[in-house]
């Protein structure tokens, strides 16, 4: 699978602050790529470079195999985190204007817009002024304008902020539909829940450096710690004894007469070994590997990184 976007060793310096320090990412075609990181990590700097709003001091960006150039503007759709519309302008007129700025012809823009307005069920808004719309309504218009010119690469910065759950779902479904149609999407967000649900790949940026990347599955696999959740009925003490010294009991709790315990297995012990050990003592209902959530990984990685940085600074 070739990549739609490849950024090599990007460095961006703002006065005394290094916003991006040797960051490389590669976004495969047709996938949803999560760009994660705490506030001020450098995500927006990277996105602005991809959008050619600013230019890197060092490094190079390739779009679909060729060096990024102003011609690519029409093939990228960008929904910035800080977004808005002209308040005094009518919705339709404004959408037409923004579409034409992306290089669409008047007729094409008109056709596509009426299709999207129907799909989002907002056709009656065409002649309304933006200031008459609610925030969520304006966000819908903004989303349409971003995807209207059918970009090959879509960059969404916190796309769900300002939407209620129903509209969030609508937009989520649109994102999936666009992916089906072959659009590659970069999603920058703090919402780890949506990362888990939507993204195929992620890159984690912290303190201007990329500290982690890979497919979501791979990353989670890498961060597994051999922790299992065991559900059983029986005596807690005999369960603990059965585990023996090799396994660490992290926590346990009881619900409706069933105990569920989190156990960290020693590296040389398999799940079968543990089952054998406890099956005579208690009645086992289930054994399940605990896979770390993206949220856990994020906090762990960013936290560890910050501590390391502070240590280095001192």
């Amino acid at each position, binding site marked *: 699978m070739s990549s739609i976007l490849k950024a090599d060793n990007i460095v961006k310096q703002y006065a005394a602050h290094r916003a991006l320090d040797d960051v490389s990412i590669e976004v495969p075609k047709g996938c949803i790529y999560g760009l994660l990181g705490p506030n001020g990590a450098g995500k927006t700097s990277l996105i*602005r470079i991809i*959008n050619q*709003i600013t*230019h890197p*001091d060092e490094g190079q960006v390739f779009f679909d195999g060729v060096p990024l150039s102003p011609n690519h503007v029409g093939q990228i759709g*960008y929904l910035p985190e800080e977004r808005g519309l*002209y308040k*005094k302008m009518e919705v339709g007129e404004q959408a037409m*204007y923004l579409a034409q*700025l992306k290089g669409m012809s008047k007729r094409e823009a008109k056709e596509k817009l009426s299709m999207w307005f129907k799909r989002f069920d907002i056709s009656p808004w065409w002649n309304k002024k933006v200031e008459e719309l609610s925030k969520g309504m304006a966000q819908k218009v903004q989303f349409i304008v971003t995807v209207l010119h059918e970009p090959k690469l879509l960059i969404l910065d916190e796309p769900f902020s300002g939407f209620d759950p129903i509209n969030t779902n609508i937009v989520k479904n649109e994102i999936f539909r666009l992916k089906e149609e072959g659009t590659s999407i970069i999603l920058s967000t703090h919402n780890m829940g949506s990362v888990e649900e939507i993204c195929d790949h992620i890159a984690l940026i912290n303190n201007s450096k990329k500290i982690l990347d890979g497919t979501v599955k791979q990353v989670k696999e890498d961060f597994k710690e051999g922790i299992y959740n065991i559900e059983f009925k029986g005596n807690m003490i005999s369960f603990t004894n059965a585990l023996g010294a090799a396994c660490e009991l992290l926590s346990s709790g009881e619900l409706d007469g069933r105990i569920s315990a989190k156990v960290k297995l020693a590296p040389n012990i398999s799940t079968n070994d543990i089952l054998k050990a406890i099956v005579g003592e208690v009645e086992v209902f289930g054994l399940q590997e605990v896979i770390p959530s993206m949220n856990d990984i994020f906090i762990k990685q960013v936290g560890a990184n910050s501590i390391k940085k502070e240590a280095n600074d001192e």
Partner: protein
Amino acid sequence: MNKINLIIQREYLTRVKKKSFLIMSIVGPLLFAGIMVVPIWLASEDDDSQNVEVIDETGMFVNKLENNEEVRFNYEFRSLKEAQEELNSKDRKYTAILHIPSVVVTHPKTVQLFYKDKPQGSSVSHMKREIAKNIEDKKLQDLYNLSYDQVSGLRPSIGIVVNKLTESGEVEEKSDDIAMGLGLASAFVIYMFIFIFGVQVMRGVIEEKTNRIIEVLISSVKPFELMMGKIVGIALVALTQIALWVVLSAGIYAGVMAVFGDEMAANQKATIEQLESVNPEATNELAESSAGGDVVAKLSAKMSTINFPVVLGCFIFYFIGGYLLYGSLFASVGAAVDNETDTQQFMAPITIPLILGIVMAQVVMQNPDGTLAFWASIIPFTSPIVMMVRVPFGVETWEVILSMVLLAATFVGTTFMAGKIYRIGILMYGKKPSFKEIGKWIITKT
């Protein structure tokens, strides 16, 4: 290029479609017409001339003081007290009492004027002149034993025709009053439009920043295109407004002429007076011309001495040049701040040269070939205003060309600099930058 056209179109259409634009387009010419018509109408309809009762204790001024448009002398032979009583009563015949005491020849400062409606300064000077003239005549009569007619024959009526010697050696009759009016009017229009529409550019930029649409826009177009599109779009709005004003003013003028044409012709004299009061130096000359006969012919003869195509050409150049110079500066101010209240600090360096320009214009008008006039019309920050004052008087070609080249070079420079400030400023939110930081923006790369 296509994109910059789109931006120009949007900037233009959204502004022209606004109600305020329509209102300004209609109210503007009415205001202009009002400024021109109302004083004339007032001067002709409303008689604010003084009907002065002269209480002459010497007897030497009776029927000797000359009336003019403002002052009519009437001679009554009664005491000052009686006259004052009548002036205080409701059925008074006169508007003022001029009391000339018997000692006036030896004590010339004892003349008194009592009034109900304050007389204009020019009316009082006229009375002063007339009394002085008569005392002078009287003294000459006594000294040389001459008759009244002999003495008044001594005083010639002088008129000075002001000529400029052109390089070809021809003598060109200059009409300073019209040149002044034209120069000052065009300078003022340029000043006003740079200000009004420059601020519109700034507001437009701030609007895009506060709306947070700016990042959406600059992912599609270059910041420089966005800035230039806005400046040019608003320039077109300004030109449209001027064109509308000219057309509507002409329409109103034509309409008024059609309805009140005859009355206006009769009031032509009042128009001349209007010109006089604006420009006292020209009084004698014009008074003579009005006495001499066909005023309109004389006026148009004066107009023909001004090179109108050159004035118009210069007006358009300095209008556009000045606007581009200041427009880009206003745009960079808009980019540097988040909201309008923060603009004050950055506005000062822009507005001071502009205001200086219009202040100097008044001085330059009096002395259009002086040193101040020269430098102020060469330095690009004041030249659009000051040079326009000088052009109708006729300026050396090399000066105009030098001034234009400098203006063009400077606006290319400021536009370039403003583009740099703009490009970084539009993405900066929060803390208001200092001048030092803005200086850094100019030299950093993106």
